[in-house]
């Protein structure tokens, strides 16, 4: 007699029901939708209502509209309507509400509330861009030291200690030169406590007293971590500005950041915005136009000034001391200067920035102030077969204006070439500056049509694979084939359910892993069924043969599955991108098949044959 205890049957039914429940959202598919957020604030119902009213006025049918988490979500029944709607909503709500194209699960609300969502499709299935960006840590350390040199100059002035020069040397060391050793020792005494992350050193160079400072190991590590963290924050802000739904931005390794933007079409612009390092600095102008030309020709620059160039190449001297840098900017929008009609960026400063701006402009009314536009550019060139990075920092004075009045927290900048330039600069200023420049070291872009085609290929291959394997098993093992095929179907449902539940990324190789699992999963049933046949030939009764078959095949099944599992886990641990997706589905598939091929088929066999006392023949 072959019977399962009631709790085993119950367990199987429970697992099956859960599997179906979590796999179900995938059948509903997804609706094209618009995702609306509010800049620097939580989205409000009023804005959603306003958007819906505008859509109604434009005769675009809306399927549903609601607030969800922090965003508004408006669903449509066709991509056509969605594409028409995006412009209508953007116009109705204005610049403060970024609108992104998105796909929303079409499954009923109560299902989603219980955590049942469709599988998360990878970029190769839904289309989009994947960037891997490498942070230039040397530059990060250098700019971090430069920031501290600025601070030290201020410290020394405040403490009335005279110094000859203060610069960053070799990109990794601050070098302060003093007129005499007494000034240096006083400087060391006054500053040492302020910079715990630096290690100070006193030395003589060419007989002159120097104070040098380098990052301690812990200080450098903290600075590198800060560079990664701030770059991620900035990237997130910029991507939000671009209006991308469900972006993925995360650290990879020590100095890399992965950015995935599903559904983005204009990759050129995405790249420009993401990789841009543009920021602004405000400095007072130093000297007169004749000083500027002299400085360029002779190469002699006054110690408190630096030589810059304007857009047309003319030289200009600006004070070394910065009034305000770009990271004090809290808001920026683009528009036009009311008097001249030229493109302009309107800038808001934070409290500290506004105070400094007010102080300095108040004391310098009638003098000139320059706006410096700073951008890092990296070009990779091949020298002797090796890639060599050529880094350039472009520093241009985009605007020089006479200070008419004390400036406060809000003012405008002109001197931009086009409205597009003004719009992009405003976006970059809003999103914040990158702490360190980055290079794109890997890029993968998949167009949406290829994505749809890949899904279709995957679905077709899965259906054919299932049909072929099922037909083979049915012909070969008859009733025991039926149980194997049911188990296989349950296996598929469980794979989909677990993938949906984990929200693991499904890629095309992931689908390949699923199809491959179909072939491998029945192996357990083949082992069991062959064993049962063998035991029957050895003269066992059907009931005894079934029991012996399942029991004896078990150890073999475990052994053989462990080896495949081992390969899959190594693939997951060491694999990148596409390979990982394959490893995930293969692993889930193999684990699920242990349950389905052994327990589910046994329960079915017990159901079919278990109650018959005088069983003389089984169909295998």
């Amino acid at each position, binding site marked *: 007699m072959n019977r399962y205890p009631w709790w085993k049957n119950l367990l199987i039914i429970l697992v099956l029901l859960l599997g179906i429940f979590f796999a179900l959202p995938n059948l509903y598919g997804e609706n094209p939708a618009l995702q609306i957020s509010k800049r620097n604030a939580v989205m409000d119902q009023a804005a959603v209502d306003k958007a819906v009213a505008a859509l109604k006025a434009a005769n675009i049918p809306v399927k549903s509209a609601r607030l969800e988490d922090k965003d508004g979500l408006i669903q449509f029944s066709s991509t056509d309507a969605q594409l028409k709607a995006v412009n209508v909503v953007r116009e109705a709500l204005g610049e403060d509400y970024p609108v992104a194209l998105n796909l929303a699960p079409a499954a009923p609300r109560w299902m989603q509330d219980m955590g049942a969502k469709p599988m998360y499709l990878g970029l190769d299935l839904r289309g989009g861009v994947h960037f*891997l960006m490498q942070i230039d840590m040397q530059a990060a350390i250098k700019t971090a030291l430069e920031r501290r040199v600025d601070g030290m100059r201020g410290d020394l002035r405040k403490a009335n200690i005279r110094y000859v020069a203060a610069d960053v040397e070799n990109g990794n060391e601050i070098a302060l030169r003093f007129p005499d050793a007494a000034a240096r020792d006083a400087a060391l005494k006054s500053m040492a406590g302020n910079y715990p992350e630096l290690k100070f050193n006193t030395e003589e160079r060419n007989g002159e007293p120097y104070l040098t400072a380098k990052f301690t190991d812990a200080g450098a590590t903290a600075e590198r971590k800060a560079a990664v963290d701030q770059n991620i924050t900035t990237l997130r802000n910029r991507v939000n500005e671009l209006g991308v739904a469900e972006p993925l931005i995360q650290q990879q390794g020590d100095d890399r950041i992965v950015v995935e933007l599903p559904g983005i079409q204009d*990759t*050129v612009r995405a*790249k420009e915005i993401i990789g841009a390092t543009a920021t602004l600095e405000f400095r007072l102008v130093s000297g007169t136009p004749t000083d500027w030309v002299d400085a360029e020709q002779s190469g002699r620059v006054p110690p408190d000034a630096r030589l810059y160039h304007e857009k047309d190449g003319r030289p200009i001297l600006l004070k070394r001391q910065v009034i305000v840098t770009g990271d004090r900017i809290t808001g920026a929008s683009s528009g036009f200067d009311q008097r001249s009609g030229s493109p302009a960026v309107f800038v808001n400063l934070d409290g500290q920035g506004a105070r400094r701006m007010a102080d300095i402009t108040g004391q310098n009314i009638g003098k000139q102030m320059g706006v410096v536009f700073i951008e890092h550019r990296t070009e*990779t*060139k*091949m020298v002797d077969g090796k*890639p060599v990075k050529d880094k350039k920092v472009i520093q241009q004075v985009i605007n020089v204006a006479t200070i008419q009045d004390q400036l406060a927290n809000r003012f405008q900048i002109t001197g931009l070439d086009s409205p597009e330039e003004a719009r992009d600069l405003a976006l970059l200023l809003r999103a914040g500056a990158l702490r360190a420049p980055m290079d*794109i*070291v*890997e*890029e*993968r*872009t*998949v*167009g949406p*049509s*290829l994505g749809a085609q*890949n899904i279709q*290929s*995957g679905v077709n*291959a*899965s259906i*054919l*694979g299932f049909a*072929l*394997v099922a037909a*083979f*098993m049915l*012909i*070969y093992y008859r009733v025991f084939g039926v149980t194997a095929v049911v188990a296989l179907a349950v296996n598929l449902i469980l794979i989909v359910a677990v993938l949906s539940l984990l929200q693991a990324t499904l890629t*095309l*190789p992931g689908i*390949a892993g699923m*199809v*491959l699992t*179909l*072939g*491998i999963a*029945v*192996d357990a049933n083949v082992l069991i069924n*062959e064993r049962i*046949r*063998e035991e029957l030939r050895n003269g066992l009764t059907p009931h005894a043969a079934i029991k012996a078959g399942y029991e004896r095949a078990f*150890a*073999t099944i475990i052994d*053989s599955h462990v*080896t*495949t599992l*081992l*390969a*899959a886990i*190594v*693939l997951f641990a*060491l*694999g*990148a991108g*596409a*390979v990982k997706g394959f*490893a995930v589905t293969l692993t889930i598939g193999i684990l699920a098949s242990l349950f389905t091929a052994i327990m589910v088929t046994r329960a079915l066999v017990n159901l079919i044959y278990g109650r018959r006392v005088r069983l003389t023949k089984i169909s295998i």
Partner: protein
Amino acid sequence: MFNLFPYNAKFDFFGKRKYAYIISALLLIASIVSLSTRGINLGLDFTGGVVLEVGYSKAADLDAIRADLKKNDFKEAVVQYFGSSETVMIRLPPAKGQNQNQLADHVLSVLKKQDAGATMRRVEFVGPAVGKELFNSGGLAMIVVLSGLLIFVSLRYQLKMATGAVLTLSHDLIMVFGFISVTGIEFNLTVLAAYLALAGYSINDMIVVFDRMRENFRKIRKGTEIEIMNASVNQTMSRTVITATTTFLSVLSLYIFGGEALRGFAETLLVGIVLGTFSSIYVASSLSLDLGLKRKDLLKLTDKEKLVDTAP
């Protein structure tokens, strides 16, 4: 009962292992010759560079595209159809003196000038340093899988069997490499995944045979090693062939419907399954036999059994 393989067969596998060795040796030599002369067509993932897949509304004129790219200083561009004549794949080596990550955009703008209907389907750019890293982690994955399997099999079975298994696995993997080399399949991350999955599959096949050998060595007290191993292979033959068939069928559907992106993956697996089946039947067991596998190696008795056995 319907059988692919007669259950009472007494085919003398191991008596004829000479022939299997000869076939193996020939295939191995062919593989190594091809690997050393033709090498492997490493994909973008490992070499770095740029790949573009461009879709056209009608059949694309490859010569015109090549000429156009040449005119615009993309002299090393490789242009070929990808799956259909409306899809074109363009491959560029790591660039010289150009900003690499803008290369793809430049190429696309050149193509759009020629035919406004050209649409970008896929762009992949991999920096040379990243390519090298992916290559190294791929190699590492292979080493970890092989040594992991060696440890598992020697713990669960026996060192001679494990050595046989790993030799067989290396034999399979060299041959599949040979196949990839001969056919010129682009070896990328997806094919690497197929390749490592194959290692798992191949070992899986061997384990089932080994498992039966261990059982039979303990059960059948009479008979030589060769007789018992022959019996074991004969008994597991049906299962080996059936599992190979179902796996082959599922991969076949990937080959038919998976499209260009999975073609290399499917081809590698299809050939690998056939090779793995042959080698798990023949090579693995034959090797462990010739490595000196004896009955006593597998008679790991429990303490109780040992006591009984040592009694006179």
